Structures are given as structure tokens and as C-alpha cells.
């Protein structure tokens, strides 16, 4: 069953791990052709939210709706429309770049896997290293390959956890252009990042999490870094100060 959708609704989602509350009553909405930035200090709940959106983790309460579908009822059809680039890259180091992508192309049942993989390797700038084992790649090369793995099946919802990690300047800017292209094609992109400089100008909307709660972000224009800092300070001045001082990467 093909489960395409053009809207993502997170409705009052909470997730607890034992007594620890990773997310508390988070609600947000995202439409097709949008890039949403998920910001917040370490341990704010960004990765937990991405895991829930990817259907890998079930919320303790609340629900996530992908258009008219939900994760439980749509199952495999819905997973075929999701792409996830996690902090761990989900690549097999013993396999070559080509074998990794071909494995995932076949796992997803894609037609013409060799052609798709060839294009993906070209996008990643790894065509000349296609037959080298991934264990010999730098972090940046792995990151580029992992992004192509996540995009191989043309997902509607792309979830990125720290997508700029390990990328050099040129690769970082290439990723920004790629994400803009995906937005123009109607994808919903949600990116958790600390790299506010690269995210500046890329994001259509911003959600800031702290201690598992979604904070109100001022609509006013201004540099993203300023808005981020002000939001954290406004939320809880005394407690937020250390978090606000935890500067995102420049």
C-alpha cells in the first residue's frame, strides 16, 4: 500500500523512558515543501522526536499523523515514504559504497537499482570511490553516502539528525542546495542541528526544544542565533542560562 501524504501533524506527543521524560506534550505541524529546523541544547529530546517521527519509537501518549495515516495502521507503506539520516549513519563498513546503496535499493524494492545507485554515488561525489569499502572513508564521505542512502527511495518526509556533521564547507553548502531542491520538489524536511550558520536562510520554520518541551519561538525577524538564544532565555531565565551558553557550532 502506497501511503503518500502532504502534511505531518504531531499531536500532544510525550515519550517517557521509565521515570525520565524525554518529550512532554509536543505538538507541531509541517506541510509539504517545508524545511523545519529542530533546535535545542543536548538532551533536549530532538533525537527522540526524530525517532518517533521515523516510526522507530512509539510515543507514550499522543499521536503522529502522516496526512490521513498513522504509523500503526500504515506500517510498511508509510515507512517507504520516510527517509532517516540518523546520528549513526546506518552503513555497513565492510561493504563498498556501491554495495551499501545497492543493498538498500533492493531492500526498498526499487526499480533499476544500479542506475539509481549510480546517480546517488554521483550526487555524493563518490563515483570514483564507489568500489572502496566504507571502513576506509572519512566521516564526511560517510555522511554524504548516508544522506544518499536516506534519499535513495525519494522519501516524502526526510528526517535529518545533525546532517552537517563532518562535512567540509563545500559539502555543507552542497547539502544546503540539495535540501532546497528537495523542498521545491515537495518534500517535508525536518533537520535537528546545532549548526545555526548553515541552517540560517535554509529553514522555513524553527522548533526549539528544551528538556523535552517545545518552546514558543518569536516570529520576529533577526538572526537565527539571536532568536535561539532569546527563546531559551525567555523560557526559563535562571535554568536556561547554562543551556543558552552552550553555543551551537559556529
Amino acid at each position: 500500500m502506497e501511503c503518500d501524504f502532504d502534511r505531518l501533524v504531531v499531536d500532544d506527543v510525550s515519550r517517557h523512558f521509565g521515570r525520565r521524560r524525554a518529550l512532554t506534550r509536543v505538538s507541531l505541524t509541517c506541510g509539504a515543501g517545508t524545511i523545519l529546523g529542530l533546535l535545542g541544547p543536548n538532551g533536549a529530546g530532538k533525537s527522540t522526536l526524530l525517532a518517533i517521527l521515523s516510526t522507530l519509537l512509539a510515543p507514550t501518549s499522543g499521536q503522529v499523523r502522516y496526512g490521513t495515516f498513522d504509523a500503526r495502521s500504515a506500517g510498511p507503506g508509510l515507512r517507504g515514504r520516510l527517509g532517516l539520516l540518523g546520528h549513526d549513519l546506518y552503513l555497513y563498513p565492510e561493504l563498498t559504497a556501491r554495495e551499501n546503496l545497492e543493498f538498500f535499493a533492493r531492500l526498498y524494492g526499487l526499480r533499476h537499482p544500479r542506475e539509481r545507485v549510480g546517480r546517488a554515488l554521483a550526487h555524493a561525489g563518490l563515483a570514483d570511490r564507489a568500489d572502496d569499502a566504507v571502513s576506509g572513508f572519512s566521516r564526511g564521505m560517510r555522511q554524504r553516502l548516508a544522506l544518499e542512502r536516506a534519499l535513495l527511495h525519494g522519501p516524502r518526509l526526510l528526517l535529518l539528525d545533525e546532517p552537517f556533521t563532518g562535512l567540509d564547507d563545500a559539502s555543507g553548502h552542497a547539502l544546503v542546495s540539495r535540501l532546497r531542491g528537495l523542498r521545491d520538489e515537495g518534500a517535508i524536511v525536518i533537520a535537528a542541528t546545532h549548526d545555526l550558520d548553515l541552517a540560517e536562510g535554509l529553514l522555513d520554520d524553527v522548533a526549539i526544544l528544551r528538556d523535552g518541551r517545545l518552546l514558543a519561538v518569536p516570529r520576529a525577524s533577526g538572526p537565527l542565533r539571536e532568536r535561539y538564544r532569546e527563546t531559551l532565555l525567555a523560557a526559563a531565565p535562571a535554568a536556561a542560562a547554562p543551556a543558552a551558553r552552550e553555543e551551537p557550532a559556529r
Partner: protein
Amino acid sequence: MKQFLRVAWVVMRKDLTVEMRSREIVYTTVFFAASCVLVFAFALVREGRPLEDASAGILWIAIAFAGTLALGRTFERERHTETLRALMLAPSDRPAIYVGKLLGVLVLMAIVEAVLVPMVGLLFHAPVLARPLWLAALLAAGTLGFASVGTLFAAMLVRARSRDVLLPVLLYPITIPVIIAGVRGTAAIFQATPDEPMARFWAALLVFFDVVFVTLSLWTFEPLMTE
């Protein structure tokens, strides 16, 4: 069904390709199983005469120990690279992933058994060629029963901190009926006069365990793997 089998095949082929590159599991399990049989041979064979019925027991103990090692390592790889999450994201029925992993483990255990059986024959004077088809059937059915539960538990425990300790603790009590049936069935065909009716009885029991264990594993894999 076609998609289910395709995904299982793709996962198994990937696991075997990775193993062919590293040869880590094959080397460690074969070495471990062979060492195990050698130690027992020194303990239980006196003046060239082995203890009665010992060969069947030693064979299955070595298979169970080596199988546990293979199961742990197979999923340790997926944990190390977090690739099990990527497999869980695939747009297919999740039990297909389980079947793919199970097939990969079965191939690895078959390689170990191909080394173990001649060793046991040689060191314990077991008549491994007396009823080769019965022996192959008992080994196949027993290995499937053991690996089906083991694959499920190894997948479940992949994020547990003490998974190396927990896997045998959980696996052996559940698979004891399989190991006992395997030992008794193999002992029946290793006798001076092979007892085929007895071997048939234990083989039938093993097939019954296989059906139960594989069905339960397919049924519980998806809910157990959803965090």
C-alpha cells in the same frame, strides 16, 4: 509473499557478503567448536575407546555453544553500526528481516557443522556415515529450532547492556528440548545397530519444535522490535 522472500533473501545475502569480507564469525565459531570437541575428546576417550553415547552429546554441545557465539556476533555488528534501525525502517513486513537474519545464521552454523561432524566421527569413532541422511535431517531440524529462538532473542537483546550474558541465560532453557531431541536422535543413529524408529521419533519431535518456534518468532518479532 514475493516481497517477503525478496527482503529475506537480500538480508541473508548481505549478511553472508559481510561475513565473507571479515570471516570473523566463521573463524571464531569453528575454532571454538573444534576446541570444545578436542577438550571433550581428551576427557572422554580413554585408550581409544570413547564413553558410550558421548559423541552425540558432544556434537550438540559444540553446536549449541558455537551457535550462541555466532548469534551474538551477527547482531553485535548490526548494533555497532546501528544498522538494525535501518532494517526496521524498510518498507516490508518486519518478520522478513527476521527470516533473512535467521537464514544467514543457519548458513554459518551449517559451515560449523560441516567441520564438527567429521571431527566427532574421527575422535569419538562415531559412525557419521552409517545413516548420513538421517544425521543431516536431525542436524537441519535441530539447528533450525535452536537458531529460530536464538535469532529472536539476539535481536531483542541487541540494545541490552549485558546482552552477552543474557543471551545464553535466556536461550538455553528454552532450547533444551531441541538439544535433548537432537542428542537422543543422533545417539540412536550412532549406535552399533542404528535405531531408525527412535531417530524418526526424535526427528518428528524436532520438526514439531521448529514449527512452534518459527511461528512464535515470526509472530512476536515485530512487537518485540518496536521500542
